[in-house]
């Protein structure tokens, strides 16, 4: 007969991923489980590492563009715009008004695409299967519009340094406008599928609560941060493109849980829709690409125009480095669907970056995942991976 003291239990180590239906790509989590409760969560990343930061050091600024849309491949244009904004600030390239509006419009279109993917995956992870197919149906409309715009459906390579690749057609604008007309009704349709559901409430309310201060300390950005009650949106704080010329609200959560982050993103659908509508209405005439901007024929050697930019935005102050007169560094952040996408570029005055570092929201969010998961159940891990909205291509770079 064993006495009670001799009976020992040990944690079950569960390797979740890199091939797992709910890890959205190649995230690997090593979970130590006590029964069904997660005691320790260790994320392992790097399965999709393609060396983009180093790789772009050997390419001229315009030719590095196709690397950038492989970061967050569900919101390709947003990454490209982030990169273009950074390089434009570095090289001091002006962007025509019309291009700014078109960029804002396309960025919001991919924000909807990305949030649709998030909603679909989040819902199917929690078990609500139908939302997936309803939302994917509407993403198709947007992808068709992108195809009409630039020929590509997913990896657009549409923006250029100093503008966009080609002008929009009237047919495209009509299509976008029609979409904005019917999209609010479609959002309501998604909400009726899950938002009244008691099981959905049970699975999301009070799960993964992270307060405002801790969320900032963890480096969360985007809707994940705003769900925690911090109204921080780079589109508002330091506007780029045409964001200072359109009206929109920043939805903020109150209870800092999975449900509030879900609500935040659902409200962002509506705000994005509003922005797209305004862009179509206000779209000015004119050029879409600055003729003086460096094109694909940019040479890797020293460039004449490389001068520190008079910074129009507060957080994009070019700093003169003591290393040499031509050395410039810049950090430029844009709001991509997942959060703050920052490009830190060190230039030595040539057509190629001396050093490039990309601050991606997914990387930051995955590093916060142990804080989210520990103490919760295995079933919640799935909901929590959904709530931080990660794409591994962006995390591993």
């Amino acid at each position: 007969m064993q006495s009670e003291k001799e009976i020992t239990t040990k944690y079950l180590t569960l390797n979740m991923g890199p091939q797992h239906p709910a890890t959205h790509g190649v995230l690997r989590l090593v979970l130590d489980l006590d029964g069904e409760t997660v005691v320790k969560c260790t994320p392992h990343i790097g399965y999709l590492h393609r060396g983009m930061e180093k790789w772009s050091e050997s390419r001229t600024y315009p030719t590095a563009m196709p690397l950038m849309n492989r970061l967050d491949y569900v919101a390709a244009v947003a990454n490209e715009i982030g990169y273009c904004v950074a390089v434009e600030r570095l090289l001091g390239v002006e962007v025509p008004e019309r291009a700014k509006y078109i960029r804002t419009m396309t960025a919001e279109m991919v924000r909807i695409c990305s949030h649709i993917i998030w909603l679909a995956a989040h819902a199917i992870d929690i078990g609500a299967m139908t939302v997936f197919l309803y939302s994917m149906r509407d993403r198709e409309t947007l992808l068709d519009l992108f195809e009409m715009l630039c020929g590509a459906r997913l990896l657009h390579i549409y923006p250029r340094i100093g503008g966009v690749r080609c002008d929009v057609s009237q047919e495209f604008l009509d299509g976008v406008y029609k979409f904005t007309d019917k999209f609010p009704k479609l959002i309501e349709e998604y909400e009726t599928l899950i938002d009244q559901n008691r099981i959905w409430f049970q699975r999301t309310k009070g799960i993964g609560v992270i307060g405002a201060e801790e969320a900032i300390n963890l480096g969360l950005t985007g809707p994940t941060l705003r769900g925690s009650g911090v109204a921080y949106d780079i589109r508002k704080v330091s506007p780029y493109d045409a964001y200072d010329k359109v009206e929109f609200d920043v939805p903020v959560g109150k209870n800092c849980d999975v449900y509030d982050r879900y609500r935040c993103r659902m409200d962002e659908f509506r705000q994005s829709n509003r922005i797209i509508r305004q862009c179509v209405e206000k779209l000015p005439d004119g050029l879409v690409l600055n003729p003086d901007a460096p094109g694909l024929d940019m040479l890797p050697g020293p460039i004449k125009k490389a001068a520190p930019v008079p910074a129009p935005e507060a957080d994009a102050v070019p700093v003169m480095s003591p290393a040499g007169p031509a050395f410039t560094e810049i950090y430029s952040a844009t709001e991509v669907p997942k959060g703050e996408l920052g490009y830190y570029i060190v230039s030595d005055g040539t057509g190629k970056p001396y050093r490039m570092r990309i601050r991606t929201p997914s990387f930051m969010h995955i590093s916060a995942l142990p804080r989210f998961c520990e103490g919760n159940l295995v079933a919640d891990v799935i909901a929590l991976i959904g709530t931080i909205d990660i794409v591994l291509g962006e995390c591993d770079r």
Partner: protein
Amino acid sequence: MDNYAIYDGLYAILGIPRDCSLLLQFIAIMINIVLVIAVVMLHVAYATYFERKVIGHMQVRLGPMRVGWHGLLQPIADGLKLFFKEDIVPATDFKAVFKLAPIFVVFAALSSLAVIPFFSTFYIANINIGILYILAISAVSTYGIIMAGWASNSKYAFLGSLRSAAQLISYEVAMGLSLVGIMIMAGSLNLKEIVSAQQQQWYGMYLFPQFLGFFVFTVAAFAETNRVPFDLPEAETELVAGYFAEYSGMRFSLFFLGEYIAMIVMSSMSVLCFWGGWTLPPVITNAIPQLNMVPGIVWFVLKVYGHIFVFYWVRATLPRYRYDYLMRLGWKVLIPLALANIVITSIVKYLA
């Protein structure tokens, strides 16, 4: 009830005299069993097709369309594919257990069919403890699931089978209790007599006086068959596939088969106990006497498919429960409700 004449239904169909030789009796029973299994298997195959079509249309898509007219041959194609797939057995010490597990599940599901009266004269066995038999035999499938999880040598399968064992045992209690009201009202555990007892009432279905029991039974039936929203043992996004994660080919399809037969059995149980089986309420048949001309099997199949449709509908609608909520629902909501139902039914029966 004459226990030796349990095959009277078949004798009536085949026109064999009651006092025929043992060999003839044996052959008759065998034919009956083969007939029931063949028909049910066909229904299982087309239940998957029905599911894919129903859910497909609920999810703004079409479901299977390629194999045959509107995908009608899809179940046969699926069956053939699974049959010819490579059968992989993981390197464990429990190969025999691994191979035995799916057989247990299918065995449990198929044996439940033995006591289900499909209509008044067609059943394999008419035993006095029909309900008890089904409850007991469907619990056997839990062993199959635990064996599968244990022998798979996989942590996902292990977790899935643990969840399943806990879930099935908890909901077994609620399901058993929910049927006690029926037993009290009908005064019998014999499924055939329960149906004829329902015919005695003008409303013809125990669904109305036993609505509490019906609610508990339906929820428990979802949990017993591991269907959404209680599909935690096989929660795809959490445990990949749960207890059958390591199974492939024919063995996998045996689990699948077991699940669908269990679904049909549970639907049949519900139809027999709450929906008046193969009969229509006397109120309706008195009003429209022509309905008596329709064979009982039609109503039975219609009711069963109506029930199965609810399974599919729920699957397309609801998210998945979390493990602790599932347990809370089972023990804190369903079992007290079922107990309250027993108390109320007993009091009403005593007073009446």
